[in-house]
């Protein structure tokens, strides 16, 4: 029973894997809940023979110990940061310390840090809050969070290696008056970096807002709002080893003044984002960012070496690496294996004990051909790619084990989708 991922530390029976024990309220429970409770009849789970190796960091990084400690510490704070009493002050202190930490780490002013629920909300808040009345422009490989926030935006083509075409950006900027531009720093599927500093210069010269989705880059590259020249930057806690449920929108002073909230609620976050912030998750977020940035050079060197080893082995069995020629993240490989459907690859690797991902999984879990690869000019191959994204704590044996599993997969009978 060691594999139950929902297992509570105090759980004594399989029943407690998922659900609380029945209480005196039992008599009032619905029939459906009784069915739930009857699950003691479930046969014991067969323990998994294979070790589970997690290589899907771009979906979510494993929690860093520093983040876990800070998260747990702050979770004991009872107060609401908006309250006037001592408990409230303690919660506010934790919240503001996290804000100042993140501001320092990412080159923003503390007043320019707006805490939100995660990367999607940071992107949506920036694009709606700064984009009203402006012409929208976005890279063709942007995340769904951005595409959905700017449904009418004009798409900027990317080169076959995934980098945005700056000339096209400049000509689009020159044709439209005030624009809002969304570009990601590092792509979630390929790790390819856009030339953000150059794009920011063009945007500033034309009076456009530049919003940068830095969710995948933060903690892995030097990310600094002031240095990039962007007006706003989106961050997500769980993408750099913090808890889920927290993120931040970083604003430069100009954007700070211009941002209008999506909802104001109780006026939290200086009226820019209503709702009581998850103080503990935010404390874990700041601790994770500090740990990631502190260890960045060592970690990224290690990840880059393992990634290169994996890519060399993959290429040797017939794979192509999407975006290989472009500057990109050290931890991300997008491997196209001709003749092997992406989902089948993910399934086979999962069954072999390796967690990787394919394309953009929708909430149903089905895998659609990668829109990112399509934008890069891949056709059928867009449905034959998997993403291997190495987490901060990956070990060389993990990478070697993956290589063996991948070689077995490549040797198996191709099943074109």
């Amino acid at each position, binding site marked *: 029973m060691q594999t139950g991922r929902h297992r509570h530390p105090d759980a004594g029976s399989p029943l407690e894997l998922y659900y609380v024990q029945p209480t005196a309220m039992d008599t009032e429970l619905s029939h459906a809940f009784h069915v739930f409770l009857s*699950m003691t009849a479930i046969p014991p789970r067969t323990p998994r023979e294979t070790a589970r190796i997690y290589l899907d960091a771009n979906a979510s990084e494993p929690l860093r110990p520093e983040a876990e400690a800070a998260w747990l510490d702050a979770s004991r704070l009872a107060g609401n940061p908006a309250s006037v009493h001592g408990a409230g002050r303690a919660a506010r202190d934790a919240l503001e310390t996290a804000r100042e930490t993140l501001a320092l780490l990412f080159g923003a002013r503390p007043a320019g840090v707006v805490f939100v629920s995660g990367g999607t909300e940071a992107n949506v808040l920036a694009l709606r809050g700064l984009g009203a009345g402006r012409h929208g422009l976005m890279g063709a490989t942007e995340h769904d969070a951005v595409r959905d926030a700017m449904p009418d935006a004009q798409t900027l083509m990317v080169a076959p290696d995934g980098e945005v075409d700056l000339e096209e950006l400049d000509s689009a900027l020159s044709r439209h008056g005030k624009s809002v531009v969304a570009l990601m720093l590092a792509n979630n599927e390929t790790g390819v970096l856009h030339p953000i500093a150059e794009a920011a210069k063009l945007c500033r010269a034309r009076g456009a807002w530049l919003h940068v989705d830095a969710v995948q880059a933060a903690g892995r590259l030097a990310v600094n709002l002031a240095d990039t020249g962007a007006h706003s930057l989106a961050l997500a806690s769980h993408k750099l080893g913090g808890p889920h449920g927290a993120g931040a929108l970083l604003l430069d002073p100009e954007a700070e003044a211009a941002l209008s909230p999506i909802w104001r609620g109780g006026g939290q976050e200086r009226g820019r984002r209503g709702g009581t912030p998850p103080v503990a998750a935010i404390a874990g977020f700041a601790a994770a960012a500090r740990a990631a940035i502190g260890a960045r050079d060592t970690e990224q060197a290690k990840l880059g070496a393992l990634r290169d080893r994996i890519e060399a082995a993959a290429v040797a069995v017939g794979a192509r690496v999407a975006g290989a020629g472009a500057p990109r993240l050290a931890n991300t490989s997008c491997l196209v294996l001709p003749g092997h459907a992406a989902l089948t690859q993910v399934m086979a690797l999962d069954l072999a004990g390796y967690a990787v991902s394919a394309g953009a999984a929708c909430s*149903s*879990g089905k895998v659609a051909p990668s829109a990112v690869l399509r934008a890069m000019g891949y056709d059928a191959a867009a449905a034959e790619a998997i993403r291997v994204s190495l987490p901060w704590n990956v070990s060389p044996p993990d990478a070697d084990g993956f290589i063996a599993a991948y070689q077995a997969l490549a040797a198996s009978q191709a099943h074109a989708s």
Partner: protein
Amino acid sequence: MRVVAAMSGGVDSSVVAALLHAEGHEVIGVTLQLYDHGAAQGRKGACCAGQDIHDARRVADRLGIAHYVVDAEARFAAEVMAPFARSYAGGETPVPCVRCNQTVKFRDLLALADELGAEALATGHYVRRVAGPDGAEMHRARDGTRDQSWFLFATTRAQLARARFPLGDMPDKGAVRACAAEFGLAVADKPDSQDICFVPQGSYAETVRRHHPEALQPGEIVDTNGLVLGRHDGIARYTVGQARRLGVADGRVVVRIEPETRRIVVGRRDQGRHEFYLNEVNWLIDPPAAGLECGVKLRARDDVRPAQVTPDGCAGAHVRLATPALPAPGQACVFYQGERVLGGGFICRDHA
């Protein structure tokens, strides 16, 4: 063994996964996403997955087995929905479930099983697979009212060899539901699925209209002498043997559908025929060159009728019924010997 379980999210396939898991097999749950549920229900912005995929995943979570959702939308549209509409437009009455079993279920899921190193494919069909002297045999389910063998005649012998139907021996649906409750599956009380899964609220005509609007254009209802008796609002609304929607109250039924002229021909119910041809015949025995006496079933809920079936060409067959009937082109004609399924084919229109 490692086995792929096709999980629809309904109670039957959920119990299949639970039973195999309880027997100690490594079960890999796979749910096919066949069409966009949000669009099918006319709800804009609804998730493509719908409740059934959610239910299947929760059952897999509960059992602690791997589960994947496979996007089979494009293939389902091309190999099941489009032929369904085309068949109606051609004056036939299609059986989309047979096509679905043939293509996205058995063919594609067995290919997937191969890639995943799984030996078998298990489904929640009510049919029995019996080991025989010449390999696996297909037999009717123990519960005759639930028997789905007619819909599975096109399963090839190679596919049957690797198929598993754990529900074939269940005494009735109640036993399956009790089993689900015993396993603690929340789908135990889930209602049975509707007839055609991709047709919301049973309006298949709209599905046909989208692909073949001509199949829903008005035309004439005539008798066998060509005398016009009335009008109809689309040949796709009729099947051979049908008595409704004819505007005649004398017991006459549809005996023929003529897509070229969009005419529905009515005649007396006893004006059936003795002989007809089948195409795409699948044999679950060695094809009997000289033909064989067996029972045939011409519709899902029909009785078995005595007949002589003779192979004709490489994938055809000639059927001679002992007593005349009104076979509907496009429907399946499945051959039975007692409980055993010997094969079957699709009823042809051309040799009428």
